[in-house]
């Protein structure tokens, strides 16, 4: 039997995704140390990275970074496959759906702040739907909706501004909406 050597060659794109994912994971882990009055209310700083990737490299790469962040971030925090992981995943999937739509908004009128706020609302909505369906099967969870929505508005705006600031140096801060990525 001939020993076979499998060589995995990391393309430039792979390395780029890994770099962005590393930044997002670092922000996510740092943020886990910030005390929060209510579980689930977090700034979501890693989403700044996701937004920057979306505007620079398109939705597919943003989705890769988001997925890597959710999985590797939860491994680092010991949350993998725990309820928090699934909430994080539900939020990430919902906000990725919103990002796909948000990236198609006319760039002349809508910048990263709009996309960020919309994605933040979808993030919260995705998490609440999962929480209602699985973790807290009672309508009482919806009493928290106004609190989560207010947090989404605040942190969505702040993260959007941070992303807009990072993107301001780029030549054209128009989202790359190419479905092929």
């Amino acid at each position, binding site marked *: 039997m001939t020993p076979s050597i499998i060589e995995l060659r990391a393309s430039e794109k792979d390395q780029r995704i890994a770099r962005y994912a590393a930044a997002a994971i670092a922000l996510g882990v740092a943020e886990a140390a910030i005390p929060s009055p209510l579980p689930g209310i977090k700034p979501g700083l890693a989403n700044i990275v996701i937004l920057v990737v979306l505007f620079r490299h398109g939705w597919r790469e943003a989705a890769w970074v988001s997925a890597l962040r959710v999985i590797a971030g939860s491994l680092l925090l010991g949350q993998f496959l725990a309820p928090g992981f699934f909430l994080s995943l539900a939020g990430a999937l919902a906000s990725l759906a919103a990002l796909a739509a948000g990236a198609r*908004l*006319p760039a*002349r*009128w*809508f*910048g*990263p*702040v*709009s996309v960020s*706020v*919309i994605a933040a*609302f979808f993030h919260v909505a995705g998490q609440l739907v999962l929480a209602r369906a699985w973790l807290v099967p009672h*309508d009482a969870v*919806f*009493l928290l*909706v*106004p609190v989560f*929505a*207010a947090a*989404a*508005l605040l942190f*969505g*705006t702040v993260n*959007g*501004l941070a992303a*807009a*600031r990072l993107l*301001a140096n780029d030549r054209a801060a128009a989202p790359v909406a190419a479905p092929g990525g």
Partner: protein
Amino acid sequence: MTPRAWLRLLRPGDWFTLCAAAAAVAALWLTLTSSGPAQRAQIRSGGRLVAELPLTSARTLDVDGPLGRTRIEVAPGRARVVSDPGPRQYCVKQGWLDRPNAIAICAPNEVSLALVGAAPDHDTINY
């Protein structure tokens, strides 16, 4: 960066998004926190309103349905179905209702007990 420089990062539509989001938050806040306490108990038999009692004083009420007699008890701030001839006793097992729009339905005997607050809202089986 100065505050003015941060504001320059916002494009015209972003203001629209922020205003719409703020309006949505305000609307959610108003609708989900303003239902207030339950004020009255509505008792229906065969879909017809047979009694509407204020949740201020205690009393019991018997309602006759096709299977027999359903007994309803009203107390300050809450109400319950005490007994019902139905086979599965779901409405009895629900116990005391104290939130507006809570409802206990004794379907076999066609009797229902619903609490209402100041403003009509979704009931507990409608979400």
